[in-house]
């Protein structure tokens, strides 16, 4: 049975698309047939982050409108043959997205895929609502920063009341916290909310902490999901997150400041 995961946050710029790309790649590398859908109609970017922007022929809206089949629109990843990308339309109005249309596409994908990731746009409008409406699990991407935490909480309220699971009285969407752009040294200095602070405020189980890392920008520059960067902490964090999501017990990393050889001697504060 396929599982639908929404990657959401409310606030923009916190790392939803980076997370969608990394986790979709991670699940596919584990051998699961995975599709990742861009719900940001008019402002698509998942294709860029995945590095397949020049291979887009048909998009999500074309499939909804019956102008292309799902197989024509799905882009097979060149690095992993278990991974497929469904790009958003760049030219259409966002009203082109309809609940029936989204349901039709998801139902068709569910027959063939094991995991379907829905990369939500920012905000709480149409695209964001449809991205989460049919979800089984929600990855709430949050930065340790007041506006992001508040918007995540708002999103949790919407997940709990306006999803299909909520409206039909099924078991609620399983929500997970992904704390991104985390800087242990700034937390230690008292200049950034800690992972425990955010967990406590949102009362969400933590799926993983993604440290602030320059490799995230470098990966997006190159169109390579950061999880493929073997040397980067952010990539390793996403690998852990995939393992944890699949039920493995992986200790949390990147939460504490790493003590260097000399840090004890030169610590000034």
């Amino acid at each position: 049975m396929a599982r639908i995961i929404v990657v959401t946050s409310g606030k923009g710029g916190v790392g939803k698309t980076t997370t969608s790309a990394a986790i979709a790649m991670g699940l596919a590398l584990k051998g699961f047939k995975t599709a990742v859908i861009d719900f940001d109609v008019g402002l698509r970017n998942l294709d860029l982050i995945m590095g397949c922007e020049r291979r887009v022929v048909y998009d999500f809206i074309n499939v909804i409108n019956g102008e292309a089949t799902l197989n024509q629109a799905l882009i097979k990843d060149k690095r992993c043959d278990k991974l497929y990308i469904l790009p958003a339309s760049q030219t259409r109005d966002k009203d082109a997205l309809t609940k029936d249309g989204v349901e039709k596409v998801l139902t068709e994908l569910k027959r063939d895929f094991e995991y379907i990731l829905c990369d939500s746009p920012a905000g709480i409008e149409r695209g964001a609502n449809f991205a989460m409406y049919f979800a089984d699990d929600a990855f709430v991407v949050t930065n340790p920063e007041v506006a992001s935490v508040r918007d995540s909480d708002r999103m949790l309220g919407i997940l709990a009341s306006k999803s299909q699971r909520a409206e039909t009285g099924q078991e609620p969407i399983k929500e997970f916290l992904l704390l991104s752009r985390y800087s242990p040294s700034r937390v230690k200095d008292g200049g950034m909310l800690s992972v425990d602070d955010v967990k406590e405020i949102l009362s969400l189980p933590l799926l993983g902490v993604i440290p602030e890392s320059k490799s995230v920008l470098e990966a997006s520059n190159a169109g390579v999901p950061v999880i493929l960067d073997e040397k980067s902490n952010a990539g390793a964090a996403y690998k852990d997150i995939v393992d944890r999501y699949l039920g493995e017990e992986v200790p949390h990393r990147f939460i504490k400041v790493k003590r260097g050889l000399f840090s004890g001697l030169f610590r000034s504060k």
Partner: protein
Amino acid sequence: MSLLDYFRASKPTSAAIAKERLQILVAHERSSRSQLSYLPKLKQELLAVIQKYFNVDEKSVSVNLEQDDDRETLELNIVLPDDELTK
């Protein structure tokens, strides 16, 4: 903990201020959210049950949810019509 930290302890860090502000805000926004979502429906369903036994209209039933720090009180107030007691 160094001596410097000891003096610093008197002034909360910006992260501590952020946490406190968020806790207050989130608690407030959650309470208004939960009231909006189920209170009207609860009132409607209670009214339907009460109407099975008494001839009352919507105006004679009031439902209020009050929230204190550690408890919630659901207050239900029904004004029964006089002649109904003989039913």
